[in-house]
Every structure is written in C-alpha cells, then in structure tokens.
C-alpha cells in the first residue's frame, strides 16, 4: 500500500507540471509581461525604464518558457515559467501583483471557507442520507414517487435562485439573520447560518436522488433477501445491512470532494460577502491578478489529486474486498 501511494504521488508530478504549463500559456497568450506592467503602473507616463524596473522587481524580466541565450540546463531554468513554478511546488506562492503575500492570504481566508463548507457538508449529508433512506424504505409507493419528483424539481432550480430567494425571504422579509457579511470569532455564526442553510437546501435534490439509487442497488441484492428470510426486523435490515453497504459509494463520493472544500464556494462566498477563498478567486479573476489565479489553480489541482488518492485508500478501509496493487 505504501508503494502504491508513493507511485501515485510520483504520477501527480507530471500532471501538476501540465496544469502549470497550461494556465501559464493561457495567461501569457493574453497578457505579455509588458502589458501587466502597464496595467499596474497606470497607462499614462509610463517609461520603458519603469516597465523594466517593475518586471525586474517581480521576476518577469526573463523569457517565458525557453531561454535561447543560456546554455545547457539554463535554457529551461532561467525562464519565468521555471522560476515561478518551482516555488509553487514548495507551496511558496510568492506575492500577488499588488504586493501581498499570497500564502498568508490563503491561510487566512481558508478559515471562513471551511466555516461554511464543513457545516454544509455534515448537515447536508445527514439530511440527504435520511431522506434517501426514507424513499428507499417506501420504494414503489406514492411516497417514493412524489419524493423523487420533488428531488427533480429541487434539482431544476438554479443555485442563484436559492441564494437570492433565501436572502430575500429569510434576510429581508423575515429579518431572521443578516443578508450578508462576516465577522471574526464566534460572532461569525449569525452570518454563517443563512449560507449553510442555502448550501444544504440547494444540494438536497441531486444528492438524495443519487443516494436513493445507491440504496435501491443494494436493496435488490441477495444478502438483503437472506437477511429478511432469516427473520430480521425491517429496521435491522435497513440500518445494519442496507445502510452499511450503501455507505461505500456515499463515503467515497464525499472523500473525493473533501480536499476541495478548502477552495470554498465561488457563488455562496461572493453573494454573502464572506472573505473566503472562493471570493478571493473571483476577485483575482476580475482584477486579472495572475499570481493569485495561478496559485489557486495549483492548489485546486493538488487538492483534486489528493482527493483521488484518498478515495483509493478509503476503498480499502470501507470495503475489505478491495486491495491496492
């Protein structure tokens, strides 16, 4: 198993290099370092010297990917791409274009992101599993059919409507909680309730329906019939035999998104003005701050790959039939 994990991590390296190369290429097709310098120094009264100085300060004064003036390994290492990427692999994200330390910003903004993401995940999981089990228990009856139709209806509503509707109904009309904002410490709770509720409600439709199909898949198998045949109570069949087996796909599905929770939610955070990583990303896109965008892309890719490895490990834990090789 250890050897397997080492191999997977080694396999991640070329993927991360590819991700970096792609984002780097996409960005510099649009913006040359000169354009970036002009954008940041202001369009008027920009001298070539000022541009060169700006580029030299931020390390943009080298060729992009290939340095023809150097020899040997220097051809690749003395370039913007190499210098900026190498630091990323050490999780040193450097400074954003307006001079702030990105690693520090990320560490700080991770807390609000997680403060929404973790409660939404836990509460959502509990509600979805309960609802799905209820539907599976009543399978084939009108409860099941109307529940599935409700799920499809909930699925068909755009997340934006959940957010706007929730803000309007709970925040503006009923004045139960503030519409948006954030505070440090425990005062943050009153700001977090609404985004968490909306995060949970908007996910009920698709997740419950998916989980219901997992339950039905297991319910059709022989061991369930055996359990009933040997005279077990329906509740014991449901919780002991059905739930524990249907949990395998549910748990692995959750584990794969677990690392990505750090990235925050783009929509929720920007609608509720929460200073997490999601709104950080949107701001960076709007300001065209390449350093931040690339740091976030790198972080996202790393977390995605970590999620994939975690899933494989989880499989061996929750399902003893699976062996990693």
């Amino acid at each position, binding site marked *: 198993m250890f050897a397997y994990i080492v191999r997977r991590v080694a396999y991640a390296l070329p993927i991360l290099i590819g991700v970096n190369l792609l*984002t780097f290429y996409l960005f510099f097709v649009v913006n040359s370092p000169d354009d970036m310098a002009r954008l940041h120094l202001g369009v008027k009264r920009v001298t070539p010297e000022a541009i060169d100085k700006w580029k030299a300060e931020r390390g943009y004064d080298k060729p992009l990917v290939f340095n023809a003036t150097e020899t040997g390994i220097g051809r690749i290492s003395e370039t913007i791409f190499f210098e900026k990427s190498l630091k990323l692999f050490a999780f040193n994200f450097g400074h954003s274009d307006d001079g702030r330390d990105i690693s520090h910003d990320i560490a700080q903004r991770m807390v609000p992101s997680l403060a929404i993401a973790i409660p939404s995940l836990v509460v959502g999981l509990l509600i979805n599993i309960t609802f799905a089990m209820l539907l599976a228990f009543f399978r084939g009856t009108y409860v099941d059919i109307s529940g599935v139709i409700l799920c*499809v209806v909930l699925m*068909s509503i*755009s997340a934006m409507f959940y957010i706007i509707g929730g803000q309007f109904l709970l925040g503006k009309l009923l004045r139960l909680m503030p519409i948006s904002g954030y505070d440090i410490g425990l005062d943050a709770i009153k700001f977090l309730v609404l985004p968490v509720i909306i995060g949970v409600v908007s996910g009920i439709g698709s997740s419950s329906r998916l989980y219901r199909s997992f339950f039905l898949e297991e319910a059709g198998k022989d061991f369930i019939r055996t359990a009933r045949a040997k005279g077990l109570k329906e509740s014991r069949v449901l919780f002991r035999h059905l739930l524990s087996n249907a949990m395998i796909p549910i748990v692995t599905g959750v584990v794969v998104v677990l690392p990505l929770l750090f990235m925050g939610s783009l929509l929720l955070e920007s609608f509720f003005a929460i200073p997490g990583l999601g709104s950080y*990303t949107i701001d960076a896109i709007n300001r065209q701050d390449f350093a931040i965008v690339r740091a976030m892309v790198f972080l996202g890719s790393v977390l995605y790959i970590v999620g994939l490895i975690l899933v494989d490990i989880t499989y061996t834990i929750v399902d003893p039939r699976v062996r990693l090789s």
Partner: protein
Amino acid sequence: MILPVILWTDALIFLLVAIVTVFALYARGKPHLRAPWRHVMCSRLGSPALVVLSAYVFIGLLDSLHYRPALENSDDSAQTHYAVEVLSVLDTLVGPLRTQTEKTYSAPFATHLYSRETVRHPDGSQTREYPRLEYGGRHLENPAADARADILQRSSVALMQALVASLAVLLLITLWQARRRRQVFTSTLQDILALRTTVPWLIFWITLSVLLLLTFLAINLSTVYHVFGTDKVGQDVFYQTLKSIRTGLIIGTLTTLVMLPFAIFLGILAGYARGWIDDVIQYIYTTLNSIPGVLLIAAAILMLQVYMANHPELFETTLERADIRLLFLCIILGITSWTGLCRLLRGEALKLREAEYIQAATAFGVRHSKIISRHILPNVMHIVLITVVLDFSGLVLAEAVLSYVGVGVDPTTNSWGNMINSARLEMAREPVVWWSLLSAFLFMFTLVLAANLFSDAVRDAFDPRLRQR
C-alpha cells in the same frame, strides 16, 4: 427585401437539426433503434417533457433565422442598403414586444411607471406623480377602474380560443388513431381519455392544451400590456426571456456537439489501443480535469476579449461579436466537460475489446478501423446519448453562474444569466423589482425541469441494466 444572415451558431444549430432528422429517418426503418424511443414516448413523465422541450426548440429555431432588413432608399441608387441591426424571425413575429419600450421599470400589467416623475401640466403647474406608460394599457380610458375588467375579458377570450384549439387537436389525434387502429371513433376516444393507449395521448393532449392556453394568453395580453413588466431601460421582460431561450438551448446543445468528437474518438482509442496511447490520453484528461473549470473558462474568455479588441474589423455587427463569444463559450465549456464521457467510453471500450464477437472479428483479420466503427461505436452509442441528454440541464444552469462571475455570454446577449445578474441588485429596491427574476426563473425552471424529466425517460429506455429492474 431582406439580407439573410447566417451566424456561426445558427449554422451549427441547423447542422444539428439536420443530423437529428437524418438519424430519425434512418431509425424509422430499424426496429431495434425505434424501440427505446417508443419507450420514451410511452413514459408518463417523458412525453409531456418532450412536448415542452419541442415548444422551446421551436421558439429557439425561429430565433435562429436571422436577417437584416433593407433600409428605405434615400438617394435613388440601385444598390439597397441594409440595416446594421440583425433581426430574427421571432423578432418579426412578436413585433410590438420588441419596439414598445417604456422609459424605465414598470410592474407586470402596470399602466403607470414604477417611479415618480415631475409632470408639467398645460396650465403651468408641476406635480410629481406616476406617469402613464407609453404602451402598457394605453387603450384604456380610465386605467384604475378598467384594467382588471379588461385583463379578465382578454383572458376569457384567450381561454375560449385555447379551448377551441385544444378540442381541434383532440379531434385530430383521435381521428388519426382511429384510422391507424381501424377502430370506431368513439371507442378510440374512450381509450385515449381512459389512458388505455400505449402512448399516453391524454397526457400529450393535456400538456399541449396548457401550452396552447399560455400561447393564446400571451398573444392576447402581451400586445397591450407588459405581462412580465419592463426592465431598467424600459424593455419588455417577456421579450427578453423569449430571446433567452435560444441562448440557453445553444449552450446546452452546441457544447455537447463540440465535445462529442473529442470524447468519442479519444475515449474509444484509449480503451481499444491501450498501452502508451492510453497513458497519454489518460494524462490529458486527468490534467484538464484537475484544473478548476471556472478558472479555465475565465482565462479563455479573457483571451477572446483581448483578441476581439485587437481585431474589430472581423466583426461587422455587434450581434456577430456576441455570437462568436457565445460559440467560444460553448467550445471552452465543451473542453472542460468532455473528460467525464471520455472516461466512461474508455472503460466501456476496454470491456468490449475482450468480448467474444470482437475477438472473433480480430481473428478474421478485420481492420481496426472497421472493428471500431462497426462493432464498438454502435455498442457505446447509448452511453453517449444518455450523457448528452443528462448534461443538457447542467449546462443551462451553468450559463447563469458563469454570467454572474463575468465570464459567461456577452452582456448584450439576452440570456437568463444576464437577466438574473442585473435583477439581483434590484431586490434591494423599495418596492422590490421582482418581475425580471420571476420570469427568468419560470422559463429557466420549466426548461430545466422538462430536460431533467426527459433525460430520466431516455436513461430508463436506453440503459438495459435499469430496464430489467
């Protein structure tokens, strides 16, 4: 005189229509291809969804026939000049909706403007009051007293028209079925009304009747009122949401059309060839998949904007610019979304190449290209179809989110995302401007719900594993 304009997305849409038509004609004579579609038609949720989707597609297609109207000849020269503005057949059909713009916001069915204005009276005095709308409820003498009665009267006219039309439809369906089944008219009618037919014609008929009622209501009311109000610059919201249908459909369909060749070719190649080709293709899709999609789309849209700013001469009209951006958005969405299907197809091809009939074909020395096109491709098509239909609703929803982030369709394009985006700021006003949001919600929700129900029916019909249960 008109000058037809074929935008890129129009061309692709009609290409898609042609492909679907050719396939439908081909499938007519093949029982094994017809059977699953018949299953879809017989499904009680799938068939009404199909009717609703067809209505949307019909509006979208009308909106895809573009032309530029000729201008009045002012200098007597033989050459006719055409307007810069590109119109569609839908614009012509709904004529007054497009041109009757007010000054600013007005509520649905309102006869007065949303905000007060200073009005100068003929005797020189000034008052601040809600002015009458220029078009909405203009035919009324005394709007405060008459509006309700007028709306009721027009609605009842619409109801009568819809009733007549829907009875005519029922008559036609029954006559057609009676001929086909060689039955008496009355017993056919009884079968249809009691849902004893294999295809649930009753459900078809009810859905169609509801659509007819809505259409007649729209025809009778929207010419003299703004049924969904007007937006900030006074444009009719109902018109905007009708125009948004085309954008939604294009995002949902063209994106998959763009990604299909990649996904099918690479997926089957990876599974069939294995070895280093498989490794390379897996590397490509893992890399693409691990980049957060929004960021990739943002980078690509930024790139396009810079390109368009540098090459203004390539785009004659603003609509053409917006159209290229829409197409580009479809392409980039396609690039970020083909990986899932590719992985599915790879797995299926891996499994199929070990199947006995393919082993036999290999043993007979059939060429690889022939094996793929003859044996593997037809056997994975149901996966492709299910994925395409399932993806549609997700893509329509994604458009709204992307427009919010600022990397969606062009701000001048009518789309539900743009409508929501501009309307959400108005929720803070007092009194609330809710109608833009409501109409975007209604139309988008209906489309996505119909698509979801339809995709469920398609999946049930095409996935043999599900059908056995």
